[in-house]
Every structure is written in structure tokens, then in C-alpha cells.
């Protein structure tokens, strides 16, 4: 049986030759991500912004009357700036409204608002079915924001520490930079596309961190191995060798994950779309950063083949002295 080989044997692609331009690109992407977040802002869902989200299906209408709904809701006195979006199937919508300040501390308020909205829609559309209501107070959403930021930060730092312990400090720093890059670019993408940013997306970003780490660690592991094996090889050459040696694995893994994700993206539940889209984007971002950011950083931080030779301890030195005297 002839087996499929996605990557030809003995590739020798000079990845690191273009390390400076790609490094600049990475920096620009990282900064760009934050600029996008700062200028355009993230489209926070009710998880993070607070407010109400009502998901509804028009059971006898082919397409949800988004424009009309928007007008109907804007006409309501209690509703300000409603966001009406298609959600999944053409006849499904998501309606997001802010809770006014007076809703804080008044649990009745959110109920009344929901009832008003549902009533207003039902007048022209008796076929509307309410699939779900999410109502998150400003206090809880603020906590969600803090918790999410904390989870991301803690995960990145803990992971970097682990790599520092298992490898060398340069590897820990390299991985941390790569992760920071991945998170920045992903956040930037969400700011650019204005896709809804919810708690699920935080899960996606953590999955991206995990995936990107897988890549980085596989390459780092090979670099460590080669540093011990080829003690005289110049570092850029050694990095290229390591990336090339793991290339078949990188392509194969990315491809399998991609073929698993794509059906979820196209046929999966609408409520998972954002999450899966983020992970899919992260797949590419993570692979890129492992090769073009995490590895070249090692050169600039001065990793040498001595990094993995056990250093002489005090006792070793003393023993030598004693032996020398003898």
C-alpha cells in the first residue's frame, strides 16, 4: 500500500532567512491587534457588557425581518440602541439590549423589559418562538471581564514558567512572546470583524494558547535535542533543521485539526460559530508564531549549545581542585 506523504522527505526550507522581516511583521501584528482593540473596541456580548440577549426563531417565516424588528424595538421607550442580528439559520435572530442604570438593584426591571420586547414582536409576528433569554447584570458582567482577563494572564504566565523549568529561560520567554502575539492578533481580529466577544471566545483563546504551545513545544523539544546532538552547528542553521524535521508533523496535525474544525464551522450549532471560528483562526496564527516568532527569538536571546550541558556545581569545582592538588 502506498501511503500518503504530505511533506516531501528531507525538506530544507530556509525559514529563518527571513527572520528579521517576519519578526517585524509579528511585532506589527501584535501592535496592530491592540490598536484595533483600542480604536474599534470589542463587540462585547451580554456576558461582558451586561444586558439582555433574546434569541428567537420565526417558525413560519423564511427569513427573520431584521430591519423591521430593529424599527419596532427602537420605537419602544425602554429600549435603547437594540442590536438585532441574524443568528444561525435565516429565520433566527439574536436581539441584544442594554439594561438601563435603573435596572441595577431592581430584578423586576429585566423581566418587564423582556416581556415588553416579546410582546412588541408578537404583534406582527405571532409565529415567533423564544429560544432563550440571557440576562446578565452589570455587576456580574464586570466580574466576568476581570475573571477572563485574569484567566488568560495566569495561564500564559504559568505556562511560561513551566517551559522555563523544563527547558531554559530563553525558551520560556520565547513561548510567552509567541502566546502574547497569538492572543493580541486574535483580539485584533475580533475587533476588526466586530464578531461578538463572549465568554466562549475566552475559551477559544485559551484553546489557541494550548494549540500554539503544542506547536512551540514540539519545535523547542527538537531544538533542545539538536543542540545536544550538533554542538558545533550555528544556531540559525540548527533552528532551520529543527523546524524542517518537525514540518511533516506540523502540517499533518494542523490539517487533521482543520478537517475536524471545518465541519463544526459550517454545519455545527450557530451558538458555537464564534468559538470554532476563533480556534480555526488561531490554528494558523499559532503555527505561524511557533515558527517565525518563538524560534528566532532564541537566536536573539543567545541560546547556545552550552545551554543544555550540565553546569559545573560547587562540588564539581572543589573536587577538581582537590584532584588538581593531588
Amino acid at each position, binding site marked *: 500500500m502506498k501511503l500518503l506523504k504530505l511533506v516531501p522527505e528531507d525538506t530544507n526550507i530556509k525559514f529563518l532567512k527571513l527572520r528579521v522581516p517576519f519578526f517585524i511583521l509579528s511585532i506589527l501584528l501584535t501592535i496592530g491587534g491592540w490598536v484595533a482593540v483600542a480604536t474599534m473596541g470589542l463587540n462585547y456580548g451580554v456576558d461582558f457588557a451586561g444586558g439582555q440577549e433574546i434569541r428567537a426563531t420565526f417558525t413560519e417565516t423564511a427569513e427573520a425581518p431584521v430591519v423591521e424588528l430593529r424599527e419596532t424595538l427602537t420605537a419602544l421607550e425602554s429600549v435603547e440602541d437594540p442590536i438585532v442580528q441574524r443568528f444561525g439559520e435565516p429565520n433566527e435572530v439574536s436581539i441584544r439590549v442594554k439594561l438601563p442604570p435603573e435596572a441595577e438593584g431592581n430584578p423586576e426591571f429585566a423581566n418587564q423589559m423582556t416581556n415588553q420586547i416579546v410582546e412588541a414582536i408578537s404583534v406582527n409576528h405571532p409565529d415567533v418562538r423564544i429560544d*432563550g433569554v440571557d440576562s446578565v447584570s452589570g455587576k456580574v458582567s464586570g466580574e466576568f471581564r476581570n475573571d*477572563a482577563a485574569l484567566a488568560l494572564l495566569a495561564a500564559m504566565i504559568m505556562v511560561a514558567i513551566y517551559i522555563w523549568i523544563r527547558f531554559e529561560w530563553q525558551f520560556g520567554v520565547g513561548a510567552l512572546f509567541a502566546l502574547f502575539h497569538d492572543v493580541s492578533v486574535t483580539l485584533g481580529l475580533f475587533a476588526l470583524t466586530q464578531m461578538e466577544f463572549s*465568554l466562549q471566545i475566552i475559551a477559544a483563546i485559551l484553546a489557541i494558547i494550548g494549540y500554539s504551545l503544542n506547536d512551540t513545544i514540539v519545535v523547542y523539544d527538537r531544538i533542545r535535542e539538536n543542540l545536544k546532538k550538533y554542538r558545533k552547528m550555528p544556531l540559525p542553521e540548527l533552528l532551520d533543521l529543527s523546524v524542517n524535521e518537525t514540518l511533516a508533523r506540523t502540517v499533518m496535525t494542523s490539517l487533521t485539526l482543520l*478537517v475536524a474544525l471545518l465541519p*463544526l464551522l459550517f454545519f455545527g450549532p450557530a451558538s458555537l460559530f464564534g468559538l470554532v471560528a476563533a480556534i480555526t483562526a488561531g490554528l494558523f496564527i499559532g503555527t505561524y508564531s511557533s515558527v517565525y516568532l518563538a524560534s528566532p527569538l532564541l537566536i536573539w536571546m543567545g541560546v547556545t549549545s552550552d545551554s543544555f550541558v550540565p553546569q559545573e556545581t560547587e562540588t564539581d569545582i572543589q573536587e577538581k581542585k582537590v584532584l588538581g592538588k593531588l
Partner: protein
Amino acid sequence: MLDFPLWKKFSLWGLTLALAAAALPSLVAPFMEEPAPTEATTPQAQEESSLPQVNLGLDLAGGSHLLLEAKPEDVKRQKLENMEEAVKQALENATPEIEFGDTSRSEGQLSFILDSATDIDRARGVLEPLMMGEGLVREWDLTVVDGQRMVLTPTDRGIDVAVNTAMEGAVEVVRRRIDLLGTREPTIIRQGDTRIVVQVPGLQDPQALKDQLGQTAQLEFKLVDQQALPTNTQAGVANPGSQIFPYAEDSDFPGGFEAVKRLGGIRGDSLINARAGVDSRNNENVVNIQFDQQGGQKFAQLSTENVGERFAIILDGKVISAPVFNEPILGGSAQISGNFTAESANQLAISLQSGALPVPLAVIEERTVGPDLGAESIRSGLVAMIIGSLAVITLMIATYGRFGIYATIALVFNVLMLLGLMAIGNFTLTLPGIAGFVLTVGAAVDANVLINERIREERKRGRKVVTAVENGYNEASRAIYDANVTNFIAGVLLFWFGSGPIRGFAVVLVIGLVTSVFTAVTLTKMWVAGYLSSKRPKDLTI
């Protein structure tokens, strides 16, 4: 390394099959007819009869999720109120009675002035025992200002204890109320210091639940102040010793007020029963209540002494109605009339029967998912997963041949073991959890890819078959181990800091990493070893 003694094979297979078997009830359940809820199938009976199954989160199964929160200030206020009563009683019961006045509760302190400065030491002696809580925890600080003014301040510890006690009581009351509503399998968990999570699967309309839980159900009977001038009452000016309460919105006098006497009333905490009913005389909906012995005696006394006078029935600080005592009410049962519908009477009965909440609760987060949507999500999620899995399997087998088949079988066991562990551990599968599944599959595939690529490399370098496989597993294990530990760390932190549905994702991720390493590394190694030792191939197609 490729040596698998019999005992090892047995235990590996045993573990694998046991966990995979644990997944079967969850896989079979959707295809079985849901038994009709009869009297025999009480929740307990169901729990005993069924095998452990994977819980479906509310986002998949449909239902309501509520997050309730209490304000510590409410607890503090209550603590001060109770203390005022205790202090009054203690000082009045002292022999001779200690006279005092100018009581005030402000800025979280209770203070009063003794009529005579010489009573200071005696008052101190009487009050000191009240300052300590259970287990000799100091709950109050007692200071004397200007020689005569005594100031009582709750300590931080005292407030903590009070909040904790109130929340424990609140969880119990919430549980009783939900049970009385007759909903199935609710989850009620205390979260943090002042929060309660309530999850009710299958409940589509959370309104009734929220109405029920939003009610503190603090019931009071107080005599109406007959001397109060209606204009004063309406303007919020009360006579000394009186207090003004608004009428409830659904009462006969919405927007109205009633002046009542502060002291000498009865509290509803001495109720032992409450039932909704209909008054046979005028067909009105009423709630019939039953006092315990002590409360019954008090009520009998109150009604005997005040025949012909009006008394106000006050629920959560709002007057429901203010009927007249037509005759002494003996025997400890009474009727609450108001502007009730059958439904609201029933609701009040449930609230009263389950007792008053020790502290008011507000809904600060609410999520409802209709069951249709949940079912649709599961269906499309499953379809997508099946397509994805088939694609992965095809790719793996086309690339690695026999080793790809091993990886595929390992993948199937991985999914089964993951489901089995979730069923055993009683974890909940949520929508993001499905994404966690995909990632786990990804991790398992990656491990096999790493191993197989390594074996290819070793073969290319001319190593013998057995050595190549051994090296492949050994060398790849290092990276697999590191990658999974880092992901594990991320997953644990996600669980730690995350909330709600995100935790569902983290749970699947963390358990999945363990099962994927086991299936993708250990199990495949055993199968490969079996193949090598029985066939002794000279070459590998990989």
C-alpha cells in the same frame, strides 16, 4: 520497552473497557423512550434505578439558570434589628430594671443612652454575654462614649458569621420553594459568599420561579394605628410608636399607605402551615395559615384584646390587606385575604410554607434555553463531529496505514473513555464542551502524528523495525508530555477562573488530555508491540 507482560495487558484492557462501558448508558439513553412521569418514578426512584449518565448542560438540554445574590447590608441591618430587641429585653429584665432611651441604629451601629450613669457597670455585665456568638466568637464590640452612651458595633467576624448563617438558611428556603413548585432535578448550589446558583432543567418559563424566589416572604401582623390622620399617613408622617407601610401593588389600595403600631405584632416565623384556598362565603381566593402553639397563643391574645380593631397583614414590607378582628381567633389558624388570584394565592402559600428568606435575594444573571434549540444544537453538533471524525480517520489511515488504524481505534476509545469518566464524575457536558471534545481529539491525533513521524524518521536513518518503534515512542513522548502538561495547566486555570459554560469546556479539556495521552500513547504502544512480536515484520509501512 515494547515488552507488555500479561498482567499489564489485562489491566490496560480492563481499565479501557470499564471506562468505555461507563459511557454506554449515556450513548443509549437518547434512543430509549422517556418513561412517563408517574407517581412511581419519583426523582429518588429514578436516581436509584438509572446508571450514571453524562449530564447535559442547560445550553444543550434546555432549562433555566439563575444566579441569585444577597446584599450583606441587608444581613447587617437585620442583625442590628435583632440586637436592638435583645438589648431591650436584657435591660428590662435586669433587676432592678435599667432605664435607657434615645436608641438609634445608624452607620451600622446600635447606640442608646442610659438614664443614669451609675448603671454603666451593671449594663455592661448584662450585655456582655450578648456580645459573644457561638463558639465564643466575639461578634460585637461594646464601647461607652461620654460616660453614658453605649455603642454596639458588629465585628467583621460577627458579620461574616451572620452572612454565612443567612446564606445557609437561604439555600434551604430556596430548595424548599423549588421543590414545592414541583420542578424536576433542580441544582441549587451556594457560590462564593453571597450567591446561590439555581439550575432547573426543562423549565422554559423562569418567570414563576423568579417570582417565587424574589419573595422574602417575611410575614407580619401589626395593629393599625387608629389615631393616625390619613393626611399624615399619606405624607409619610407617623405618630410616635407607629410606622408607615405602603400597600402592595396588587392589593385593593395600590399606592395607598397604612400606619401601624411598631410593637406588639406577630411575625410569620411561627407558621407551621400555609395553604391556598377559597373563602366559601364570598368565593375569594385566600391563604389559610396555621400557627405553632406559641404563635397561636399570641395570635389568640392579640385578637381577643383587639376585637373590632383593624390589623394589617404585611408581606415583605408591603400591606396586603387590613381586615378587622371580628371575633377572637382561637385555635391558631387564620386566613389571609387580599386581592389574590388562584395563582398568586398559591404562590404566597408556597412562600409562606417554605419559610421566609433570611435575606432578600436578587436575580443578577439569568439564562434560559428552550428545549428545541438545545436539541437542534446537539444534532448539528453531532453531525459536524461525525463528519470531522471521518475526515480525520481517513487522513490518518491514508498517511500511516496500519499505524493510522491503531490511532483511529485509540481515538474511538478516547471518546468513549472521556464520556465514561464524565458520567462517573457526574460532570456536565455543555456546548463549549463539544468544542473541548474536538480539541481533545486534536491532541490525541497530534500525539500519534508525533510518534508516527518519529518512527518514519528513525526508519529513514536505517534503524531496525523494533528499535525505530521504540525510539519513536521514547523520543516523541517527551514533547507529548510537555505539550499536554502545559495544556493541562491552561485547562485547570480556565476551570479555576472561568465561570458557567466555560467550566464545561475546561472539564472536557482536562479529562480529555488525560484520556488522550492514555489512549494515544499507552494503548497504541501495546497494540504495536503485539503486532511486532507476533508478526516480526522486517519492514514497516509507515
